[in-house]
């Protein structure tokens, strides 16, 4: 009897050890098990197919009711999303999943800052969306389409929104400084040349309301200038040219000049102190894609509603935007392809813009009432849709590269910000390039 209880106990212990060990191995082996629970389980059960989306931030498809609409159109399809709040957490995980071919959703979102790297290194893991029926290349802005396409012509992801950049300005502060306030006239002040923009800033400073600056931050300025260039950090053959490209050095020096002259605030964008300067009306202009109006609205005081307006930037550019791709190892590749084809069609993008402010990457949406009639509390009755449409259509087809973000962050956070602290432009350039070169060096 005693021997039996011992044996039982031993069996229990062994089982415990074995299960611990097994749990361990399972933990290492495969994490697609979790995804399967919301992914494939429904494949058999009720005869419904569940398409899963891996997204970051607030892309707003669900909020705009697009999933519900598609589910109504296709009763056998269910859509589930898995959202990671910040792209800097989402992207490394996506890379891990792609390189190990596990844990991928049926649809994966890719941010514009990462698209070049994914196109360059992970294209083999994605379906070619250009071959999917119903996908028509001509519907998209040229530059948006080409950003998601490899050199061999494989389109790994379809464009969702874009960030056509205009300049938002404070009418009241412009008036106080003796500058025009009409959006046409303001656009003419600096049309075609960032130097004119800085000249306007110098003019602003002469009669500026005390304590205000012409622009929000050096980072915002250099980003705006760079995103209006056709070539910035890479040339068309994929070589890194940021140090020798005169356009980059000019953008850096012009921003440094603005910082030296005190035209830009000594702030870093999206830091709490920068947020406060919006609330306290400390600056008169900011480079402004449609989503930035949402940021301003979120940070500004209610009494500043209607005091902003949107003018055309000296040169148009793009800031932000996303893509949707279908990994080959997904469980429902065909269904996922059909779904994102529908989801990125102009009609859906226009609906998304209305709810979420994500600007469509398909020009035929620009004439739809959701876009032409768009209004924002901060800009009153201004036809913002028209201004942004114009910017989207005139933005350059920019050469983007895998390490754009690292280079730009170096130029901004380890570069021009130093000029606001009294360093010379040359010193700041040296610190920035040293940091960038170290960060790029494999």
């Amino acid at each position, binding site marked *: 009897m*005693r*021997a039996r209880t011992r044996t039982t106990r*031993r069996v229990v*212990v*062994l089982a415990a*050890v074995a299960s*611990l*060990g097994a749990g*361990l191995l399972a*933990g*290492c082996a495969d994490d697609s098990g979790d995804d399967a629970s919301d992914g494939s389980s429904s494949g058999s059960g009720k005869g419904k197919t569940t398409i899963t989306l891996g997204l970051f931030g607030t892309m707003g498809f669900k909020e705009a009711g697009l999933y519900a609409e598609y589910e109504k159109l296709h009763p056998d399809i269910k859509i589930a999303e898995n959202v990671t709040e910040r792209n*800097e957490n989402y992207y*490394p995980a996506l*890379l*891990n999943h792609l*390189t190990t071919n596990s844990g991928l959703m049926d649809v994966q979102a890719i941010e514009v800052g990462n698209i070049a*790297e994914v196109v360059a*290194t*992970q294209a083999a893991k994605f379906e070619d969306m250009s071959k999917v029926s119903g996908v028509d290349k001509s519907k998209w802005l040229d530059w948006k389409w080409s950003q998601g396409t490899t050199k061999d012509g494989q389109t790994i992801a379809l464009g969702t929104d874009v960030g056509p950049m205009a300049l938002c300005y404070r009418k009241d502060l412009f008036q106080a400084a003796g500058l025009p306030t009409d959006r046409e006239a303001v656009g003419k002040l600096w049309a075609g040349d960032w130097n004119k923009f800085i000249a306007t800033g110098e003019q602003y400073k002469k009669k500026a309301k005390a304590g205000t600056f012409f622009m929000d931050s050096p980072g915002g300025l250099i980003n705006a200038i760079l995103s209006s260039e056709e070539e910035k950090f890479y040339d068309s053959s994929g070589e890194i040219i940021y140090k020798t490209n005169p356009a980059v050095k000019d953008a850096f020096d012009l921003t440094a000049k603005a910082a030296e002259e005190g035209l830009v605030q000594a702030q*870093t*964008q*999206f*830091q*709490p*102190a920068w947020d*406060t*300067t919006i609330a306290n009306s400390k600056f008169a202009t900011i480079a402004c894609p449609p989503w930035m109006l949402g940021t301003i609205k979120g940070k500004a005081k209610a009494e500043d509603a209607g005091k902003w307006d949107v003018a055309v930037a000296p040169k148009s550019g793009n800031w932000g935007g996303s893509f949707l791709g279908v990994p080959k190892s997904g469980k429902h590749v065909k269904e996922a392809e059909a779904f994102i084809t529908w989801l990125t069609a102009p009609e859906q993008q226009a609906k998304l813009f209305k709810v979420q402010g994500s600007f469509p990457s398909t020009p035929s949406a620009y004439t739809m009432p959701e876009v032409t009639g768009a209004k924002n509390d901060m800009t009153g009755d201004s036809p913002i849709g028209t201004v942004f449409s114009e910017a989207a259509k005139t933005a350059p087809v920019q050469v983007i590269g895998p390490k754009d973000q*690292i280079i730009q*962050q170096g130029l901004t*956070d*380890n570069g021009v*910000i*130093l000029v606001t*602290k009294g360093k010379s432009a040359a010193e700041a350039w040296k*610190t920035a390039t*040293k*940091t960038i070169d*170290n*960060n*790029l*060096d*494999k």
Partner: protein
Amino acid sequence: MATRHDTAAPPAKEGGAAPGRPAAVPTEAEQRRRARLSRRWQRDKRWSPYAFVSPFFLLFLAFGLFPLVYTGWASLHQVELTAPTDMEWVGMRNYTRIFDDDFFWNAAKNTLTIGIISTVPQLLMAMGLAHILNYKLRASTFYRVAMLAPYATSIAAASLVFVLLFGRDYGMINWALHFVGIDAIDWQNDKWPSQFAVSSIVIWRWTGYNALIYLAAMQAIPQDLYESAALDGASRWKQFLHVTLPSLRPTILFTVVVSTIGASQVFGEPLLFDANKGASGGAEHQFQTLGLYLYEQGWVNQHLGRASAIAWTMFLILIVVGIVNYVISRRLRASS
């Protein structure tokens, strides 16, 4: 393994009062059965202990040893996060380049200075607080819990609040300083203010924890030591110096070792202190610690090989620090 069945006495067969050895030789089958049992128990005795301790070792193997060895292997290669299986052998290059990597040595220096700025005041304050709490106080449990509250706060939450407090333009600390005529300090972008600010988060978080450890040790000091010191005419201060401190020596050593380890791993506070600049630790890397630099190379710049070499170099540096610590503590113990 309390009872050994192979040697335990079998029941007596002949009804005698004294249990004796069995007179008759057991049958062949019985002998085989016993031998089998015996072998089984031998095996049990031999292998069960391994089974009992195996969970730890399996876990250690999977999450301790394997990553350590694999990191070492990866550090000899050029590996990118975009293709972790695609390794290119570069030998010791990732290590040799560290010698003239200004950013690494800058980070090492920052780790050291932030470590000193955060650890020394932290332990001194902890000692003082423990001494105060050691007196009979009303609501002493309340104070003790209050001391531990920062320790229970998440680093992220604490750091984000400190960022607001240390704001240059709208921060509360600069606002308070302007009353005493001190101009706005750029806590994020100037070297020493930023290191001080990062250290202050560490200090805030860990002082109470160390104070409680000191307090526990103080309460273990026999009361009669103080009484006899008082009889000899020692003041409170003298009592602290000559009774409390010597008795706390092992505890102090313990907290120094733990704080040193903690200081060498400082990561979350500097990462979140200027979150928009990512892992670069400020515009001029003025508060980038080694942990942060490692993270930047591995996860931001995606150079897994370089990051692995940095990790191993940190490991080696820590071993050296550990040896120094050990030697000093032995000296201290010998001298006492």
